[in-house]
């Protein structure tokens, strides 16, 4: 028996949904589910800083080395590229600072004294097969890890011969071959989650969003600038469309931290961002539109 199928689950602290828009044999549905869950378990047991037994939690206690798959290498080489480009503002070594701000494994949300993260070159070295810390540090891949996982789930589906799907990691999306159709996605209002401020239409690409409205405590939200030790407040939300979710996810965080010009020189993507006065900045080929007050000025 074949059917279209949909898979919903909790992973890395949020809700996921995978929709397949083509008939799949019942048995294959089960296999795919097992592969996805197996991959996520492996990912979390390595990279979750909310699990004390994860590899990176261990590396925060005692220096050491972990081996990297070629996929994992693409993740850390993107991190390194963005680290250099942003002069250290975008860094996987932000883990301890997030914990100090209160975003820890028990969600204490109680800030303590804050310290700047260590310099990459002082503690971390990444080769195409290994990641090594020469002194203990807490790695956090929260700025690109979800996108990375979305891409891997997409690859699992492709490997099983399934090409028409949408992977939805709680509002970060990867879509593939929608039979010529485009997926219409509302863009959430950063100040009112019951509203949308625009619509994007995507196909065969990823849309990732970032906003400070959820996961917010005290003066912090989930993005903290390691130079200022503050959460950026000038930008309320970012939306990025790129070929892969890992890049879209990472850039949606970067846009909070550095001017878009810096990123446009280096990467192929479209973006929109909403500033704290609800003004917009939208790249010329952003595949969507916003509901704006612009008409009132004409």
């Amino acid at each position, binding site marked *: 028996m074949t059917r279209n199928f949909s898979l919903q689950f909790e992973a890395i602290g949020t809700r996921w949904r995978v929709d397949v828009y083509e008939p799949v044999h019942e048995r294959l549905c089960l296999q795919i589910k097992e592969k996805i869950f197996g991959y996520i378990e492996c990912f979390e047991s390595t990279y979750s800083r909310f699990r004390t037994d994860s590899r990176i939690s261990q590396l925060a206690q005692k220096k050491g080395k972990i081996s990297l798959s070629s996929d994992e290498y693409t993740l850390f080489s993107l991190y390194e590229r963005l680290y250099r480009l942003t002069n250290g503002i975008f860094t996987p070594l932000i883990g301890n600072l997030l914990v100090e701000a209160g975003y820890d494994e028990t969600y204490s*949300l109680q800030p303590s004294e804050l310290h700047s993260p260590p310099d990459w070159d002082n503690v971390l070295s990444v080769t195409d097969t290994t990641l090594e810390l020469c002194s203990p540090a807490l790695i956090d891949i929260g700025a690109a890890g979800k996108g990375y996982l979305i891409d891997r789930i997409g690859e699992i589906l492709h490997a099983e011969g399934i090409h028409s799907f949408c992977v939805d990691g709680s*509002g970060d999306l990867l879509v593939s071959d929608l039979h010529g159709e485009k997926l219409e996605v509302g863009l*959430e209002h950063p100040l009112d989650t019951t509203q949308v401020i625009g619509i994007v239409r995507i196909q065969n690409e990823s849309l990732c969003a970032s906003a400070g409205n959820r996961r917010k405590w005290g003066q912090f939200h989930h993005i903290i*600038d390691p130079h200022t030790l503050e959460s950026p407040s*000038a930008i309320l*939300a970012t939306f990025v469309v790129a070929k892969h979710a890992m890049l879209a996810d990472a850039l949606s965080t970067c846009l909070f931290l*550095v001017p878009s010009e810096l990123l446009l020189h280096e990467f192929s993507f479209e973006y929109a961002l909403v500033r704290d006065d609800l003004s917009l900045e939208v790249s010329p080929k952003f595949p969507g539109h*916003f509901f704006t*007050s612009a008409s009132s000025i004409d």
Partner: protein
Amino acid sequence: MSDTNLQPSTTSAHPNSKKSMMPLLVGGAFVVVVVAGGATALYRGGTASSQTTTSSSTSLSTTTQSFKDGRYISEGDYMTHVGQKHLSVEVTLKDSVITDVNVTNQADDPMSVRYQDIFIANYKQLVVGKKITDIQLSKVAGSSLTPQGFNDALQKIEAQAKS
């Protein structure tokens, strides 16, 4: 039509400006200032955003200055790592209120043209929301749903803060 007014330059300094790490390009490093006598001049402000022409916290009409009606055109200069760039701003004034603003791309290299295009495409816009329930959508993109533990912690802190 309050949002047709430009605000004086100094009130619009962007909180993010001190963190800007690049030479500021066109991403809105401009502040239009209407000077006495009605001439318009364009200055490069120390801001990192294009919000200056769209925000409206201070209305020119509330000042004691009055300005002659008419259209005013001025050119703005700004420095990039590939040299000085220009952009032209045209402002229409009526009863001391700016009723229209137009910016014209005058960049001479592809990257600056692109940045000026981004600025021009956006500088008038302020976003408004529509109820999700009023629109047909397949998905909504935004911040991730918050895990239970996080919400619990927030509620506890709230309770502590009240007691």
